[in-house]
């Protein structure tokens, strides 16, 4: 029952956050100096385009009525109709790209954790050793390599020189097309995760209970993985959660390089085409996911760390 109450409270506050983000976007659009239509459209826009935007933003109505209309759209009408594809609601547009984004995010997370955890353990086991220094420098290099560049580099290597993977584009659908984008995103995330994991592990390894576990005669792998790594998971999960949220819209660069559809590229496209309902729907989708990730993290913290569990 305690869990149920916890969930209910968190869902309500999460929905509140999403609503606040959506309202913030609405008022940001209206707080701009000058006519929003002039700001959003450049001078080449036709009179019809201006009228359409004015009508869709309900700019001919008083502000309160505009806001009520906006909230009704948000709750009941799939966030309004897309300007570019009026036959679909903005929410439907987001749903179309959602699976592609989710698959890429999960794959990239998988790559990052599979690389980062073993490296962090290796480095933290002997601080100051050559392995430690090598892991430290390579994680810094991985952090500095922008995905705007590693993406094209990987394409060049695997699709042009080695010819083992399909060139990015509509032909590169399916699992083989996912390998390079996941590697590109995973590599830069792995850099930060390795650094965090290494410093968290080093701190944990100084704790008395690690000495106690060793004194009990537990083997080094058991001490490292079952005792040290488990405690070090809490800061790592915080970083991982932030990275997962950032992947939703932030994968846009990788999506562009590999010509993939996704939430980020839909957002960019809708911004460039001034498709306001779709852009707002993207922001709401990102906000919902951020809230959901935070909720999952809170559950995961309690699962990993008994101290948090007993604190309720």
């Amino acid at each position, binding site marked *: 029952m305690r869990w149920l109450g916890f969930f209910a409270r968190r869902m309500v506050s999460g929905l509140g956050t999403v609503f606040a983000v959506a309202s913030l976007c609405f008022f940001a659009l209206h707080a701009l100096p000058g006519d929003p239509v002039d700001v959003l459209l450049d001078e080449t826009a036709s009179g019809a385009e201006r009228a359409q935007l004015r009508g869709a933003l309900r700019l001919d109505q008083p502000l309160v009525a505009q806001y009520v209309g906006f909230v009704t759209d948000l709750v009941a009408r799939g966030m309004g109709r897309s300007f570019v594809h009026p036959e679909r609601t903005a929410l439907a547009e987001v749903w179309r790209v959602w699976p592609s984004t989710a698959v890429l995010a999960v794959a990239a997370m998988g790559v990052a954790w599979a690389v980062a955890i073993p490296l962090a353990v290796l480095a933290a086991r002997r601080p100051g050793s050559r392995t430690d220094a090598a892991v430290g420098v390579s994680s810094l290099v991985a952090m500095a390599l922008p995905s705007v560049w590693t993406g094209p580099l990987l394409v060049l290597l695997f699709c042009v020189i080695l010819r083992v993977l399909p060139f990015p584009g509509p032909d590169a659908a399916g699992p083989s097309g996912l390998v390079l984008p996941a590697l590109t995103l995973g590599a830069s995330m792995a850099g930060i995760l390795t650094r965090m994991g290494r410093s968290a592990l080093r701190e944990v390894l100084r704790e008395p209970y690690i000495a106690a576990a060793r004194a009990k005669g537990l083997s080094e792998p058991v001490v490292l993985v079952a005792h040290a790594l488990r405690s070090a998971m809490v800061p790592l999960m915080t970083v991982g959660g932030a990275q997962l949220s950032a992947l939703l819209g932030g994968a846009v660069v990788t999506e562009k390089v590999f010509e993939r559809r996704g939430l980020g590229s839909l957002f960019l496209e809708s*911004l460039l085409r001034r498709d306001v309902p779709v852009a707002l729907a993207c922001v709401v989708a990102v906000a919902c996911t951020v809230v959901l990730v935070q909720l999952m993290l809170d559950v995961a913290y309690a699962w990993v760390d008994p101290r948090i569990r007993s604190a309720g």
Partner: protein
Amino acid sequence: MTTLRIEGRGVIGVPLVLGFALTAVLGPWVAPYRPRAIDLAHSLEGPTALHWLGTSDNGVDVLSVLLVGARLAAVVSVSTVCLSALLGVLLGGGATFLGGRWSSVMARLTDAAQSFPSLVVNMGVLALVSRPGVAHMIAALSVTGWVGYARVARAEVLRLESREFVTAARALGAGEARVFFRHVLPNALGPLWVQATFGLGATVLAEASLSFLGLGPGAAASWGALLDQGTAHLLHTPRIAMVAGVAISATVLGFNLTGDWLRDQLDPRA
């Protein structure tokens, strides 16, 4: 006063940063061509005596774009970091120092802002203007940038506020503003410098990413836009993407290494 010794990661990081700074200052003066000079007869050429790094499409000299782009990257990153640090310290540090409701509201706000993907916010802000310029880029990056400084400033204020010298200053009759600016803030500068160094690298990367997406200042030569062109010609002329990518990566790596070095220098125990 701590004396800084160039050692460890600083041996590589500091020269990279100095090289970037020097390029940014001198670049536009020594660039052999204007970064927009079109020469259709020599488009996508390899390195020659006239064009040391070759040309991109429309025959634009790649070296010139690189040199002029360094200035843009430096202007954007330094301005963004200054503005973000100022906002972050005043909002995050100030609210925490005032305590009570201000402090808890600011803590929640920074937590919420940090969990939202910053690139999405940057893109949204830039899209609010039809032709983004350099100032818009700085504003868009600062909207998300201040959060990091606010968190560092908050942690420092919490660490320092109950120390004896703060109590002593209050006992001597110093006002809250004087205590904050003259006693707390100077002692919080070390971690803020480290944060700012990493922030410079992160801003160079963010500017390149946004320009790559076509949201950069259209009138200026930019590394991200050069990389975008290079990606389009990746099959035939991978050189352009290479040049831009190496420039961006070396700069970001330089700032990250320098940040690590600075942290070790200012706090040798960590």
